[in-house]
């Protein structure tokens, strides 16, 4: 009992600490609405709401179709190139959304090479032909789907691979064909994984600023920035952020409610060698084309555009400052990924071992940061930290006549804390999904054998969870590598990262000059992505043995 109590307390404490920035922002909700709020309601609020909703629906549909289809194909079917696609389909993860948006605009815009070629061949002018407008709501949904589907793919594929063959066999003996098995058994069983992947993708969508801003789509996030800075009204901006949070909470509650009491772990550990479905003829070709097109659109094409820029148009080349940029990016990503993993495991377990309301809510709030734009999080972090700094300073001056200045503000610590607030959801979701697959009866069995919860974790869970833990680690690593707004605002003096460099040039409309830094981010991001897929494949092999 004692153990439970201290575990509960420490979980609530950790979760609370990480919730502080979110709570600070939500706190503004209680500041009385100003007249700016009426202005917003009269003019642009409806646009913000409908655009954000449409964008979310678009990305949900896009990532679902792309992610689940590719997961099923690579997990269950055999077709040429499958082994390569298994890991290659994760590559778009390494591509920041705003970079892919820039490259596609470069390619498909009216003044870009594709349309210019069309006009050269046909002699058409402006208005003579129809061409899809990439810088639109639909375009933004497409861009975001192309880089966010890997979350759904990753988690769903792992779920498919972990599904006991028995279940699938039973389905077939009950007379379901492959397609029916997929729809009636495999898909519903993979639901927690799909939901987790979709939630990540949608939260990332809501927080996106770079893509929608560049495409001129007015969403909640652009609205927050505009209200905060253009209209100079913090309270109204925070109230918009509060509504954004309500969106997310509703989303999560709907998903949890629908899942309700269902349990998704398997009762058999008999994982036989998977008999992949051999595809023939047209199906074989279709499977290959689907995966290849996806990979091309999400990765090969934008990367080749970046490479072209690098060689033809870039005026900034790799110089000695690059080394420190790479070093900074790597250090931040590694430390954050590790800390996020440790915290996620703690919180996830807390919720499992003592599933009471307090821990649930605390952990829930701690995972909320992912949907909040990085710059808003950064401010939510700065306010309490600086308050502490200034309090400490005044205290020391009053007591000892020494000034401490800013102790936390402007340090790496602040930055990493902000990353944790923002990306904890990522590791939390992944660890949770992994834990859901472990039966509670196993915990009970372990307990009846006299193992303490900690021992259960060590001897039973960790071996079964390695894949999920590794995934959590790498996902956060890649995300921190790409992170921009919080890094920009919180970093210490003379401290730049690759993302900062890429952004500074791109936002100066020097897209081509951003290519070296953007390519370096992608290149570094590829390494964990490959490790990731290797670990998933390996964990599957271990199950077999």
């Amino acid at each position, binding site marked *: 009992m004692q153990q439970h109590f201290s575990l509960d307390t420490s979980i609530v404490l950790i979760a609370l600490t990480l919730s502080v920035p979110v709570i600070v922002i939500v706190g503004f909700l209680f500041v009385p609405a100003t007249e700016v709020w009426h202005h917003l309601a009269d003019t642009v609020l409806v646009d913000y709401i409908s655009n954000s909703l449409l964008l979310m629906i678009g990305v949900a549909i896009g990532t679902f179709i792309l992610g689940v289809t590719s997961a099923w194909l690579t997990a269950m079917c055999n077709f040429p190139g499958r082994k390569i696609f298994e890991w290659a389909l994760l590559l778009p993860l390494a591509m920041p959304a705003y970079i892919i948006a820039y490259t596609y605009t470069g390619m498909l815009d009216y*003044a870009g090479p594709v349309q210019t070629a069309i006009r050269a061949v046909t002699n058409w002018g402006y208005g003579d032909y129809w061409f899809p407008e990439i810088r639109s709501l639909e375009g933004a949904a497409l861009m975001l789907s192309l880089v966010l589907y890997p979350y759904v793919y990753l988690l769903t594929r792992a779920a498919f691979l972990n599904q006991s063959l028995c279940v699938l066999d039973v389905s077939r003996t009950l007379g379901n064909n492959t397609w029916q098995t997929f729809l009636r058994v495999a898909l519903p069983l993979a639901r927690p994984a799909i939901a987790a992947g979709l939630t990540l993708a949608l939260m990332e969508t809501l927080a996106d600023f770079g893509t929608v801003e560049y495409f001129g789509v007015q969403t909640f996030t652009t609205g927050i920035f505009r209200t905060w800075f253009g209209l100079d009204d913090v309270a109204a901006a925070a109230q918009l952020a509060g509504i954004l949070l309500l969106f997310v909470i509703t989303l999560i509650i709907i998903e949890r409610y629908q899942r309700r009491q269902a349990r998704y772990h398997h009762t058999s550990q008999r994982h036989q060698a998977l008999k992949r479905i051999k595809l023939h003829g047209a199906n074989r070709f279709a499977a290959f084309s689907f995966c290849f097109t996806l990979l091309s659109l999400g990765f090969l094409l934008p990367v080749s555009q970046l490479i072209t820029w690098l060689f033809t148009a870039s005026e900034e080349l790799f110089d000695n400052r690059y080394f420190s940029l790479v070093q900074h990016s790597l250090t931040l990503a590694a430390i954050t990924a590790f800390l996020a993993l440790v915290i996620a495991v703690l919180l996830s377990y807390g919720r499992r071992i003592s599933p009471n309301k307090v821990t649930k809510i605390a952990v829930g709030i701690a995972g909320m940061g992912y949907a909040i734009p990085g710059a808003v999080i950064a401010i939510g972090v700065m306010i309490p930290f600086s308050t502490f700094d200034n309090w400490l300073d005044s205290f020391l001056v009053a007591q000892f006549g020494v000034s401490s200045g800013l102790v936390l503000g402007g340090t790496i610590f602040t930055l990493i804390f902000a990353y944790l607030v923002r990306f904890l959801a990522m590791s939390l979701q992944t660890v949770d999904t992994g834990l859901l697959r472990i039966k509670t009866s196993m915990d009970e069995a372990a307990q009846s054998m006299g193992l303490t919860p900690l021992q259960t974790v060590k001897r039973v869970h960790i071996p079964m969870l390695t894949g999920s833990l590794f995934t959590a680690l790498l996902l956060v690593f890649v995300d921190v590598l790409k992170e921009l707004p919080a890094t920009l605002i919180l970093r210490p003096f003379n401290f730049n990262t690759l993302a900062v460099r890429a952004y500074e040039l791109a936002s100066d409309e020097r897209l081509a000059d951003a290519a070296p830094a953007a390519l370096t981010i992608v290149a570094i991001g590829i390494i964990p992505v490959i490790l990731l897929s290797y670990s998933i494949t390996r964990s599957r092999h271990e199950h077999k043995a």
Partner: protein
Amino acid sequence: MFKKTLISLLLLGMATPAFSAEVNLYSARKENLIKPLLDRFTEESGISVNLITAKADTLLKRLQIEGKNSPADILITTDASRLHRAKKSGLTQRIDSVILTKSVPNSFRDSDEHWVGLSLRARPIMYVKSKVKPEELSSYEELANEKWKGRICIRSSNNIYNQSLVSSMIANNGAAATETWAKSLVGNFARSPKGGDRDQIKAAAAGQCDIAIANTYYLAGMINSKDESQKEAASKVAVFWPNQADRGAHVNISGAAVLAAAKNKENAIKLLEFLVSDEAQEWYAAKNGEYPVRSGIAASDTLRSLGEFKKDNLQLDKLGILNPEAVRLMDRAGWK
């Protein structure tokens, strides 16, 4: 091992060498558009410069939150409105420098000497040479005329340069007239606003519109680009300097303020004085196509090719004062 790394990193982050000659700079100018100048300053003066770059809005927030213990001495922004906002929030202090008051014209300095312009950014009309004769153009106001229906490209009203342009219109013509103007202007847009300033120029060059409104340094960047397609697009448009018969073309500044919390005030002023020196002023023009804030500095060849023009001499703190009003006005006009 991990703990050690973390601790050393934390120390690294905190280690601000408080005893050496230094000045701490929060800059909205991008690193590559300021660092070379700072390095030159350090070479000449022996004062080292610590730099953080970010968007002006976020730097302002950071300053506000850090309060009196903020390590920053100088804030550099790329528009006047944000400097005004910094002053209004009580973040800045009076700069006493004869060199600065002498070299920088009144209208490009704060009326209470809280901030000073360092370079000028002009936002003229650009037209497609094959479709528009310069005689057809006259002023920003005239772009509301129906004859421009479906022919104008300009970026989103989220952009500060548009917010400043509209603020300057309000200052000159009043809010009611400006709102009518904005509504008609939006009606003349060739497309819903998207992309940056270069995108407007490219769209005009490609035939999507006949007129683009953009800052000149973007055009200068395209003219000098290594990328042939950008060069070609730039060659299709020309600059028209509007309102030459009356107030002059709209200009904004990139400027700097000395912060109230500054611990290295003397060094900060030294740096600002360096930034208006001949050497620095010529560098802005050559490297980023901005106009010198001081008269009598040689503009770069590219800038000279865009022609001489009369500048709007509006006291620039007006841009900041009127900014929130401009944003609302654009919202009401349906300027996305």
